[in-house]
């Protein structure tokens, strides 16, 4: 999460430049409206429906044509529904000529609004009967509705700006954390994961080698490890053959141990040693 884009996009607040200009000039902030080519406007022109190219500050001050119209209505008591069509058309044409690529997008929205105002006016000039006031499509009704809806959220935004918030009105309280005693957490493994890993690795091995990897019964493999560990851990070099068999394991246990021994011998991991016929048999780790 980075705040960088937010600060870039969100600040400085619009009107900031205007505010700064006002402070700089020491003008009464309420009086000064805009500064165009160094000339102070203390009053908003009442007949301006499209911000002229020169009024850069203007674009920063208003959020768009709805905002501008609201201003004209609320502050200038302007009847936006009764404007001079000729005048707005002239401004419209002039503006298209002056329009720079830079402000095209924003300007477009003002132009649409100017066109709408001109349309309203022209429809009002038509004979009354054809102008149905109850009509859903009445552009005046639509415009008023949009203006009212916009005004509602404009005030909602102003209210939101007064809600106490972090960084300005409230600050989180923190204390330095103590030196943490970190416990090592061991990974958790599901047996299924091990099996999936096995099947995958064997599958892969089959793809790369001629024959399938052979797996002996697991009881034998396990016993091989056990026997090998005993032989390796034994204090003496030789481990008696008989000591590997445990009666309690029964016949099956004996067979498993025997198979394990055979496999260990075949893999040359242990040697069997017998000094003479019928002498005790011993095991030892395979010598090279």
């Amino acid at each position, binding site marked *: *999460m980075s*705040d960088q884009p937010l600060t870039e996009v969100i600040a400085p607040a619009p009107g900031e430049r205007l505010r700064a200009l006002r402070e700089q000039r020491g003008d009464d902030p309420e009086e000064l409206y805009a500064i165009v080519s160094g000339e102070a406007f203390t009053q908003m022109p009442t007949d301006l429906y499209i911000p002229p190219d020169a009024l850069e500050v203007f674009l920063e001050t208003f959020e768009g044509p709805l905002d501008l119209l609201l201003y004209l209505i609320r502050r200038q008591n302007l009847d936006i529904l009764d404007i001079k069509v000729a005048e707005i058309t002239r401004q419209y044409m002039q503006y298209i000529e002056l329009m720079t690529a830079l402000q095209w997008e924003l300007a477009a929205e003002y132009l649409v609004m100017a066109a709408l105002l001109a349309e309203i006016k022209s429809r009002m000039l038509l004979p009354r009967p054809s102008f149905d006031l109850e009509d859903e499509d009445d552009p005046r009704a639509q415009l008023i509705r949009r203006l009212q809806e916009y005004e509602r*959220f404009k005030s909602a935004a102003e209210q*939101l700006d007064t809600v106490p918030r972090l960084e300005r009105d409230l600050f989180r309280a923190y204390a330095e954390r103590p030196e943490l005693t970190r416990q090592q957490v061991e990974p958790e493994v599901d047996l299924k994961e091990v099996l999936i890993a096995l099947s995958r690795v064997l599958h892969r091995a089959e793809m790369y080698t001629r024959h399938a990897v052979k797996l002996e019964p697991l009881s034998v493999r396990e016993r091989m490890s056990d026997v090998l560990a005993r032989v390796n851990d034994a204090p003496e070099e030789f481990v008696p053959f008989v000591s590997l068999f445990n009666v309690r394991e029964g016949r099956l246990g004996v067979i498993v141990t025997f198979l394990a021994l055979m496999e260990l011998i075949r893999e040359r991991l242990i040697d069997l040693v017998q000094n003479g016929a019928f002498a005790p048999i011993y095991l030892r780790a395979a010598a090279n």
Partner: protein
Amino acid sequence: MLELQRIKQIVEAALLCADEPLTVDLLERLFAEGECDKPTLKSIIESIEEDCAGRGIELKRVASGYRFQVRQELAPWMSRMWEDRPPRYSRAVLETLALIAYKQPVTRGDIEQVRGVAVNSNMVRALLERDWIRVVGYREVPGRPAMYGTTKTFLDYFNLKSLDELPTLPEIRALIEPIEAELAGAGPEYVEGPRVEFPTDTVVVAEEFLETDVEPRAERER
């Protein structure tokens, strides 16, 4: 169970060194089996809240849990600690946020419809990155535009427990009285509405507008 005083120390300390607000559930996880139970935790939290009376900080419950914060009345002194002025948000941001907060879920098209200007996509991205808004779905119209809603982080930032704690959405105000009256036809059946605060003939219109969806959704989207 641990001694109550020890539990209180742990809870207070945890709330002061956590990066984010903590819920009772998260607090409970600090304790080993049998060290503390939920009812105890809740009463401890209350007692910590009471302890804050008269102090410079308060325990506040916001959307994502409890956090300690400096009381608002002390902000003038606190702000002297930092050279930077607190961030200010442009009207475009605040209006967009207000629209998303009050009308969620909304698409960019919905926002543009109300504001009458294009929504800057960098701004939307910045709000998403800040985790103040999130995509809550897509509207099933051509182009499947994303619908946005606010997040807990947004509520936390504005010190709110839930969306209902937002100030109520301002009423629609009468705009151009003569025309509105004319448009409404001043029918008596409308006069009785519950929100009468304006002169009768204008209220009628205002109510009309309140209840009317400006335009069918599908048309607006494109």
